[in-house]
């Protein structure tokens, strides 16, 4: 069997949707962050697949960029969570409603 671009895109879609569903379903903020990481991974697979498809290293470069973005996002996100936890003693997003007007 020959692998095509579509195989990878389909895999990425499944992984992405898993992450998306998780983000909607879970209330634990940390787990939600992890779901975001999962979605980012899906995107990375798409990048790498297209890089392979076109024989261009640009996709790889952007995967690396994504690593950096993911790292930054995780660092900030977790720092915020820690701060929230200090103040509210919870990371359950359903209890964090102060974003409401």
């Amino acid at each position, binding site marked *: 069997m*020959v692998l095509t671009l579509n195989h990878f895109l389909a895999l990425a879609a499944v992984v992405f*949707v898993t992450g998306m569903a998780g983000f909607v379903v879970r209330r634990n903020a940390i787990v939600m962050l*992890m779901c975001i*990481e999962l979605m980012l991974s899906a995107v*990375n697979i798409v990048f790498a697949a297209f890089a392979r498809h076109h024989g261009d290293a640009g996709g790889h470069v952007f995967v690396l960029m994504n690593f950096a973005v*993911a790292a930054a996002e995780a660092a900030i996100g977790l720092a915020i969570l820690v701060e929230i936890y200090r103040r509210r003693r919870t990371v*359950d997003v359903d209890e964090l409603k102060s974003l409401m007007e």
Partner: protein
Amino acid sequence: MEAFLFWTCGALMVFGGVMMVLQRSAVVAALWLVFAFIAAAGVFAVLSAPFLAIMQVLVYAGAIMVLFLFVIMMLQGPVMEGERRRMALPLWPGAAIPPLAVLVLVGGWLGRNSAGSFPAAPPAGFGSPGHVAAAMLGRYLLAFELISIVLLVAIIGALSLGHRERNQTWS
């Protein structure tokens, strides 16, 4: 061989992701995510991207996930063990429909449109550190520099968020 690797790694990655979502304990969820990431490294390998595969394990599964685990440990509390309330049953379909719709539609689209198979063999040295470095420090230098600023900002942001006045104690 490639196909076998793809199907295996792909299945493991999806499995890891689903398990992460379903786990009530944050620690276990994090471990499942690490599992999924390692599988993703396999997928990268299939895509002739060995450098990415290694970085995926080192940076992602290694560094970032350790950060997650570290935070989870730090915030030990019972909350971390699981969620106190389950989501109300009637809401499940509502939550599930959009992702499923996306999946179905994307699948359908992919079924109808095929970009064809990959070029037989990638150029020599494709995906090697040297190859990636040439692109990153050449054409994409500006982007590379910008991402460094993003990281810098993230560092400063994390520091300032974590920084506490001396007199203030854990409340």
